[in-house]
């Protein structure tokens, strides 16, 4: 059985038909521009030569996979092609997909993709990221989802800086039917989070999700502030925060790597929420981030509705990227 079939089987075993439909729909544009291009490329080149590789390089770069990762990948591909003595571009297709999936998985266990929820204890989730990536929206969706699953959820409005941020979280709190702990705009975010922990404890909540203000990762003071927020949580609840989610905009280019690195240094990021994947966005940079920093994607934002946040399913993601290739193969 070929690699693609294996992947396909693996995916089809998944019982959640609905999820796969969502992924396919949400990522339609991504897929069209990506696997479509690879197919087109393979159709145009019959021979595997330098020009072929150069154009393949461009296709990958256009998906924001990242220049370094692409260069490495191309080098590996060239070796593989030589080793297996592949001359036909059609055969090379499988190797490409194989390598791409390899980049994502690396040596990591799949386990790390699951949200780390504590049993019978308060789980604290800290949400961080640069400005405008969709932190508050993702929190609203996540709160809704966790509540649906039977958890008592509380939100802490830690973005005390941006105009309207507290109100925005409050609207999401209403939509999801969960309490929001807040102070006035301009107050110390660490104090708000502290209040959030106290409230979560006294009200017997299962999950506390802490919103923070967006900040560019090169602002040292603001990153220090974030580290302080994390320390406050650590001090109140040993072992917390149980998850630090970095929200990344899928339209972001190479800077996403810098974001992942710097936010990790300040807060030890445990997972990524990849938002706005319903655009023409590609989010290829998550391959490189997982490969280099071993930070997995845990959720994917596929739309603006309250239930448009999906648990990240690596197989589905890969399937989404390569659906056209798979379907074509089976015809």
């Amino acid at each position, binding site marked *: 059985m070929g690699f693609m079939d294996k992947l396909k089987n693996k995916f089809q075993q998944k019982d959640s038909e609905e999820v796969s439909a969502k992924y396919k729909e949400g990522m339609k544009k991504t897929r069209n521009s990506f696997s479509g291009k690879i197919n087109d490329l393979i159709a145009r080149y019959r021979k595997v030569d330098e020009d072929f590789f150069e154009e393949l390089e461009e296709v990958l770069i256009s998906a924001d996979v990242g220049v370094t990762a692409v260069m490495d990948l191309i080098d590996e591909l060239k070796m593989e092609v030589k080793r297996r003595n592949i001359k036909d571009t059609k055969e090379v297709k499988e190797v490409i997909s194989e390598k791409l999936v390899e980049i994502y998985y690396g040596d990591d266990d799949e386990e790390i993709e699951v949200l780390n929820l504590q049993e019978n204890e308060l789980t604290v989730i800290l949400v961080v990221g640069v400005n405008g990536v969709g932190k508050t929206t993702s929190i609203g969706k996540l709160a809704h989802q966790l509540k649906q699953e039977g958890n008592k959820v509380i939100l802490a409005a830690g973005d005390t800086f941006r*105009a309207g941020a507290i109100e925005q979280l409050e609207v999401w709190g209403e939509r999801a039917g969960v309490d929001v702990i807040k102070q006035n705009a301009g107050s110390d975010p660490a104090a708000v989070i502290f209040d959030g922990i106290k409230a979560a404890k006294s009200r017997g909540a299962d999950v506390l999700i802490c919103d923070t203000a967006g900040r560019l990762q090169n602002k040292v003071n603001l990153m220090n502030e974030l580290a302080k927020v994390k320390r406050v949580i650590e001090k109140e609840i040993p072992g917390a925060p149980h998850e630090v989610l970095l929200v990344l905009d899928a339209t972001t280019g190479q800077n996403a790597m810098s974001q992942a690195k710097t936010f990790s240094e300040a807060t030890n990021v445990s997972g990524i929420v990849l938002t706005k994947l319903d655009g023409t966005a590609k989010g290829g940079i998550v391959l490189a981030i997982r490969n280099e920093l071993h930070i997995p994607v845990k959720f994917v934002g596929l739309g603006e509705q309250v239930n448009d946040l999906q648990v990240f399913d690596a197989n589905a993601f890969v399937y989404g990227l390569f659906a056209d290739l798979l379907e074509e193969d089976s015809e």
Partner: protein
Amino acid sequence: MAFEGLSDRLQSTIKKITGKGKVSEQDVKEMTREVRLALLEADVNFKVVKDLIKRIKERAVGQEVMESLTPGQQVIKVVKEELTDLMGGEQSKIAVADKSPTVIMMVGLQGAGKTTTTGKLANLLRKKHNRNPLLVACDVYRPAAIKQLETLGTQLNMPVFSMGTDANPVDIAGKAIEQAKEEHNDYVIIDTAGRLHVDHELMNELQQIKTTVRPDEIFLVVDAMTGQDAVNVAESFNEQLDISGVVLTKLDGDTRGGAALSIKAVTDKPIKFAGMGEKLDQLEAFHPERMASRILGMGDVLTLIEKAQTTVDEKQAKALEEKMRSMSFTFDDFLEQMGQVKKMGPLEDLLSMMPGAGKMKGLKNAQIDESQLTKVEAIIQSMTKKERQEPEIMNASRKKRIAKGSGTTVSQVNRLLKQFSEMKKMMKQMTNMQKGKKGKGMKFPFM
């Protein structure tokens, strides 16, 4: 910084290609390879890169190498010129309608920074052009978007027109214009909801608003960190709305901002402004030439020079130079100098503008903490006049008093004193040495 490695690589390639009178094809090939990587790393769209590299090759091969340059530098010069050509000249004018009010529409993807930019633009119109704008809240979709604009309006003490979230954005925009006429607002800035360029329904809504209000400017707001997709976003918005200009936001981050180049290349519309921070006065005119340097990772000498020119008073500078020479530089002078540096803007900005700053020892990963500056200031301010003039008289009890007064520790005071005396020594060296010799590991007390 994330791109240090790349700019170093570029620099080393420049150095490799030396000592020839003419730029050979091989030189160009080697350089363009690195340039291509640099551009791609900077998120310039690969198609744009391809065209650019082709043109650079054509132009650079066979060029005479200018006297002061190496062939590598000569190629970079061509690259920079090409980039600058592509970016176009500086254009930060805002249209003025024949008949008031002038209408500006803000459009873009979610999270690009439209609402914040709306506030900044209004502030700029009032401060620089003495205008009286009305802000219009047409984002009825995102929770609390109206509240966000209203808060900005309160901060700026400017009127905000809104009709709640149940109204139709097209109606809101239309009514806002009527109100502006009645209230004699000479500018109307319409903040619209963020939307995907592939969302037909919402793009249609923008077209309707456009037909209704007939805007004099349509600004596409784009996040400077946008990747390869920037071309599609810009192309789509431009095709459907015929935008008049672009505002690039979050340029105070460490992104190289290749999106700027992509956008300009596909739309041929000017990038007029750049968002440089979260505060409402941090909207600057966009400088295409500097952006070209930034994308290439070659530092932004121009900005640095200009900033220094505007903030450092020449007379003061002369007096300072005199003092350096005569070694009578005191803590008072130091304090003054620090004040001037501060005026030039955030230190990390200044550093990132210095070409090769990444290569300087100790600067590579220098985390410049501005609060350190405040500490240094506090320590100096806690000194007596005499102590500032003659730091030699410092003893244990004086240090203790200073530490207490400035809320620092004796060891911090000691460190500053030591660094100050080293700095003085260094100044002596610097003034003694004429051009050609290099100073050793310059270090300021706040690094």
